[in-house]
């Protein structure tokens, strides 16, 4: 028996090249995280502004909470939809690691499903009732937000555990019924804080971008959004550096050394740091402008670039963790070229169809597509 048991992936070849699955995984995960950050970050923004807006002297908070309330269910819808794609591709490349870690924390992993349903309906409840000021709205949103924080914690547990096979056997023998948590891994807490704080940061950048677009219709309201979101973004980005440092110190020393000696990882890391700083400066400076300012939009763009680079870095870190156990280059590959081509065509067709529907909506000129719950 192996000292570190690694499930075999079977004799079937990969139905496409590793690089293609890697690209699809990284891109779909980036999009999933952008939507997830909107749901989680948007949730805390909505919650804060809802309670603040209950006082008459904060009409902007009240208005923002109402607008966010109508967007939150959509954010969650696309978090799930885009997450399915990432889930699909991670199973292709790292299925044997992913399934094993999921089984080890099986109870909590499966609990994600009812928790998500509860949070999702909570968001819908808030979107229907927040404007009417019903008493339970804020409470329900707070519960939903806490539930999403819990879901994020389970995800961080699983993603950290899947790249630590040396912990599996002991955990399985301790609790074969899936009542495990990966809290023995020192990197889990900083990783979790990094994810949650990053979600607030990214959504603040999105909100700054949103506020800029509001300037034209309502200068005062738009400026209020931009300035507050810029401040929060800057603060959270600063905190990200601290949490990032903590995480770097918490991962095993030999892993950190390999990461910091890998030219590609260092390059990506450096670019991510620079883009984060650039995003922070651009949004902060742009937030003082009186009218629509390209700097905020650029800062928003840079924050998305930072997210993408962090996802790439995360992938590289996982590869370092799994280096003793997995060699993607050695996997047998038998590309299903015809099906891949069909997927690409349909993917473009799907994007075009969604674009067409959005164009119909935009053309109508009256709809509030992102801001109107199901009636």
């Amino acid at each position, binding site marked *: *028996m192996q000292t570190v*048991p*690694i499930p075999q992936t*079977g004799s*079937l*070849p*990969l*139905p*496409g090249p590793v690089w293609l699955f890697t690209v*699809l995984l990284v891109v779909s995960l980036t999009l999933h995280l952008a939507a997830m950050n909107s749901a989680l970050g948007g949730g805390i923004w909505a919650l804060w502004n809802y309670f603040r807006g209950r006082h008459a002297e904060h009409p902007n908070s009240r208005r923002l909470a109402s607008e966010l309330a109508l967007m939150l*269910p*959509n954010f969650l*819808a*696309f978090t*799930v*939809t885009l*997450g*399915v*794609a990432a*889930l*699909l*591709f991670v*199973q*292709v490349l790292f299925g*044997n690691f992913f*399934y094993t870690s*999921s*089984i080890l924390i*099986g109870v909590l992993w*499966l609990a994600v*499903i009812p928790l*998500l*349903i509860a949070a*999702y309906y909570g968001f*819908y409840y808030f979107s229907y009732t927040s404007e009417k000021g019903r008493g339970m709205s804020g409470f329900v949103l707070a519960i939903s937000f806490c539930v999403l924080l819990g879901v994020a914690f389970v995800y961080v547990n699983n993603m950290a555990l899947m790249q630590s096979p040396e912990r*599996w*056997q002991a955990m*399985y023998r301790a609790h*074969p*019924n*899936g009542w495990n948590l990966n809290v023995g891994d020192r990197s889990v807490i900083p990783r979790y804080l990094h994810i949650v704080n990053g979600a607030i940061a990214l959504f603040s950048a999105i909100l700054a971008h949103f506020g800029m677009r509001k300037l034209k219709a309502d200068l005062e309201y738009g400026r209020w959004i931009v300035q507050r979101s810029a401040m929060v973004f800057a603060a959270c980005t600063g905190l990200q550096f601290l949490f990032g440092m903590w995480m770097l110190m918490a991962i095993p020393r030999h892993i950190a050394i390999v990461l910091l000696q890998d030219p590609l990882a260092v390059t990506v890391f450096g670019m991510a740091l620079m883009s984060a700083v650039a995003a922070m400066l651009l949004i902060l400076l742009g937030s003082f402008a009186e009218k629509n300012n390209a700097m905020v939009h650029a800062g928003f763009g840079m924050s998305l670039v930072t997210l993408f680079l962090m996802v790439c870095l995360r992938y590289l870190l996982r590869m370092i963790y799994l280096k003793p156990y997995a060699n993607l280059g050695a996997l047998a590959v038998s590309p*299903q070229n015809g*099906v891949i081509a*069909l*997927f690409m065509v*349909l993917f473009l*067709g*799907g994007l075009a169809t*969604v674009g067409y*529907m*959005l164009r*119909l*909506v935009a*053309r*109508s000129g*009256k*709809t*509030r*597509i992102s801001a109107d719950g199901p*009636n």
Partner: protein
Amino acid sequence: MNYPHWQLVIPGGLLIAFVAVLHVFVSHFAVGGGFFLAVTESIARRQKDAALIDYCRRHSKFFALLTLVFGTITGVGIWFTIGLVSPEATSTLIHIFVWAWAIEWVFFFVEISAAIIYVKTWESLPAHDHQVVGWIYVVASWMSLFVINGILTFMLTPGSWITTHNFWDGIFNPTFLPSLVTRTAVSVFLAGIFGYVSLPKSEGRDKVARWSALWIVAGALVLPLSLWWYFACIPQFSRLYFDRGFIGVRHAIRGGIGFTLMALVIALLCGLWKPRWMRRPPVGFLLVCGLGVIGAGEYLREFVRKPWVINQVLYANDLRPARIDALQSQGVSDTANFLLTPDTASSNYGENLFYLQCGKCHSVAGYRAMRWRVDGWDTEFAADILQHIHMLRGTMPPYPGNKGDRRSLGRCLASLNPSWQFTITDANRLAVGERVFGARCGHCHTVNGNFRPLRGAFENRTPSQVRAIFPALGEMSSNMPVFNAPDDQAQALAFYISHEAGKPMPFKQPPPEAPTSRSHSRFARPARPWQEVP
């Protein structure tokens, strides 16, 4: 054994079924309900029927809340559950069909986008554009079903993929089309049922009630035809399960037919004939019928695939045939990645084997409980019968372990019940014999049933003549376990067999080992519950 086994208090298969039935119920409504909304809106717009448009608007809100949230998340839930319970099968399907799932995801993405836009733009979009969005939803959701249907049917009928390993051979397999028609019919059926959830209270009520009833009737009429077609295309081994008297199969068939008929009757009575009767109780009952139809269908779909999870590729215990060969020669302790104890002499090892090898489908005392299935077994008999386990009634895979493993598991199984101690009298001899028959013979035989009946061998024999045959059973067939029951139990068993085989038979006996004739299926029920195969 490649992966750790998630040790649940219920069999993993039951967990999958629970999540899957709920998801399939809502996801088929997502397909049919979208079609229902698009067609209804078209009619309402054409007829300028404001009440009907208002109904569509309200129904779309319910539709979105149910399908976007519950339908979508439980779909992810299936991914999670199958990965936890059958990681090997999930990995295998992913390796074969990842691009099919990627394509399905594209349709899913369009579907979700269209649903959100559709439900939010009743006031803002021009009527034509709104209907276009509705029809985009219809196409995307049905295409999503189209692709998933290919993967699901592949699991039972991989067809020529087995030899070619060609993606298209796998997707367009022998049951693809009948299953697609069946699922489309179910979607239409459910669309009608769910149509009543948003039934208007006053204006337009009768019209909607009759309209929804038509959908239920249409779905219910197509269903038997498509299922008959599907049944004609499933493998021979699957068809045999309908004749082997499995209680679960029988209940699922009766339930499926019963729920469909009840829904049909309610639709005709309270929908078409007297729409004012369509109040909450019949609507609630219709929803129960819809869920019942899905539950029955899913149960049968899963059952007829036994002993496989992917026919000819992977057994229900998540093992490939080649892996079973290795396990039989090397044993579990030398090959499994995740064992709770490496000490093969300990009783914990047998318990570990139970969960590892049986736990995906069986529990100790709950669903598909082993406790009553092995009542009356001793360690030696259990260890012996385990090597013939795949010969029982076809639902079990070959035993994945060596002789030592069989003995350890056998000891564990035997320990689930206290050993039998009988004081046999003339009064209870027949009853005791029947129990012994259930424990020793009933897993593979009936006396007068149509599955491996013993009547031919024991007809007109006295108990002592029957008893005299027992010591030689092991030599009659390599698939027979050694008969080692205590003498008093053997006497009672002989008495029971002699008694039962001597009964006059009102029907013609089918040939042994070929229980294919459907004309005898009403006699196929087992004499006692324990004769159902584990």
